[in-house]
């Protein structure tokens, strides 16, 4: 693993789930800053609020809440649909997990996460433990969709561009900006849960994104 500071910054960008201790702020801040509050999710606000970017994305998945929750709650499943997450291993003797994350230019970094909130079939939130190399948090909620449409799954992330405007430009260049990455991850989760596989238009095995990313690494 590369521990130089450039790699650390890069790693921050590589995350689906950026930022520090956003937790409850994820829902509270934008509401407070909308002069005329409405029912739209806060992250759809037209005006930036505070120093943190809050990003969210919702998909409807034609499966029951519990099945989706159970799959997500087993964090070892996350690398199946989170492209930059290479591996999740439980930390022995603690209620924590070690996430190995892919960073640009073939770098990797390990982050220890803990569950910040957990309500069966409703919500899972997680954050990196104090003193982690990089800090991350995320929250996924599961609510019943109308009628027989299954479940609405929302993934909300807080994100602070690690190196200001330059950091964001850098991130975009790698197409790993958290907003894009989290939307992609969530849609891949939908594909996996509904169809049992993740769509690829590759014609041969070594043309798949996975093969190409491994080749890059």
């Amino acid at each position, binding site marked *: 693993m590369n521990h130089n500071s450039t790699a650390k910054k890069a790693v921050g960008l590589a995350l689906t789930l950026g930022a520090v201790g956003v937790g409850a702020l994820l829902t509270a801040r934008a509401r407070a800053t909308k002069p005329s509050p409405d029912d739209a999710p806060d992250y759809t606000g037209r005006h930036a609020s505070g120093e943190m970017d809050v990003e969210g994305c919702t998909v409807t998945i034609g499966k029951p809440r519990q099945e989706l929750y159970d799959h997500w709650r087993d964090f070892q499943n996350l690398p199946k649909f989170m492209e930059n997450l290479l591996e999740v291993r439980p930390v022995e003797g603690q209620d924590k997990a070690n996430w190995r994350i892919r960073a640009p230019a073939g770098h990797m970094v390990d982050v220890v996460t803990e569950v910040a909130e957990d309500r069966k079939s409703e919500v899972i939130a997680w954050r990196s433990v104090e003193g982690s190399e990089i800090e991350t948090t995320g929250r996924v909620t599961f609510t019943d969709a109308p009628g027989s449409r299954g479940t609405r799954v929302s993934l909300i992330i807080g994100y602070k561009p690690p190196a200001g405007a330059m950091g964001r430009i850098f991130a975009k260049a790698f197409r790993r900006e958290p907003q894009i990455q989290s939307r992609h991850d969530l849609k891949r989760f939908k594909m996996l849960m509904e*169809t049992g596989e993740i*769509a690829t238009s590759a014609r041969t095995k070594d043309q798949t994104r996975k093969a190409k990313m491994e080749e890059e690494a």
Partner: protein
Amino acid sequence: MRALTWQGHQDVRVETVDDPEIINPRDAILKITSTAICGSDLHLYDGVIPGVLPGDILGHEFMGEVVETGPGSTLQKGQRVIVPFPIACGQCFHCTIEQFSCCENSNPVEKQDLTAPLYGHPLTGIFGYSHLAGGYSGGQAEYVRVPFSDVGPVVVPDHLTDDQVLFLTDILPTGWQAAEYAEIGPDDTVAVWGCGPVGLFAVQSAIAMGAAKVIAIDHYPHRLELAKKLGAEIVNFRESNVLQALMEMSGGLGVDAVIDAVGMEAHGFAADNLADAVKQKVGIGADRAHVLRQAILACRKGGRVSIPGVYGGLADKFPTGALMEKALKVRTGQTHVHKYTKMLLEKIEKGELDTTFLISHHLPLEDAAEGYRNFHDKQDEWTKVILRPGMERGTARAGQAQETQQA
């Protein structure tokens, strides 16, 4: 394997490329026996649809023999199948309500970003139809990878020939859906713009659905002749004033339903079309919407507008006033092929529908580039081209449409 690849504006070539492999569990690999060039492939050929990259394999009308299956496929080796051109998972919200061409799960996630900003939603995956529709390798090749092979492919009985069933993959259901969207009643007069394959099948379907009168509009004499043989009255837009003719032929009421089977590359010298053609040439994303404008004006008040023709971008001078003030109903979209295949296969088996009248040429896959050139340049005689991977280079066989012409 050998495959027809796109290289640039009006430049397609047959090249040797890597064979497809099973990647996902529900995949199957087909050995292609027949594949057709679609009118919508000409939009790719002309470069008016973005997101096609050099080397991309085209072709979304194909059938063949199953030679390999993934563990999640329900197909068996040796089965002979036709494959719908849209790729559908069968399990998302849209697939469960039979809106297969709106499947949410077939366009790979990272490709969805190419069309979502333009349309508000991403396109569904389509074989061989640009990276906007997923970037899937098409079927104008010796082999093809078919995702979700437990959902799309339909096994065809041995006693039906390839020519009889190949068009179940696209143009037959597309013509049928277009007529269905026209909501045809027994007293209705229906006008169809474009006597290409989809227009002709729309004419045939509209007649099968019991329309009192079907009027076909084109400028190619042979294509109009085919429409006439199906039972349509014909209007040649080079000879007649279309709007006036349609008003007269529908007793001054206007036609009850209009079907635009032309789409974004309309021919003709009307002022609006020339302006659109210039805009399309300089690549500012404009569709040549002349036919659609005319169809909306021709449609009677409270009538139906059905649009199977492909549009991709934006059109200006769109008659929003006529659309609203005349209380028109619009139905459009890529065809939900999966919804129609079995029903239409039965009609073919019973002899109620014949699709072979359309075929003008059988060519070896190796001569596919020639097929494109002629289908593009000689639309009157080259009504439908079928490519066969097995045929020897330089051999060509006439189809029924050509015989009609010579007779």
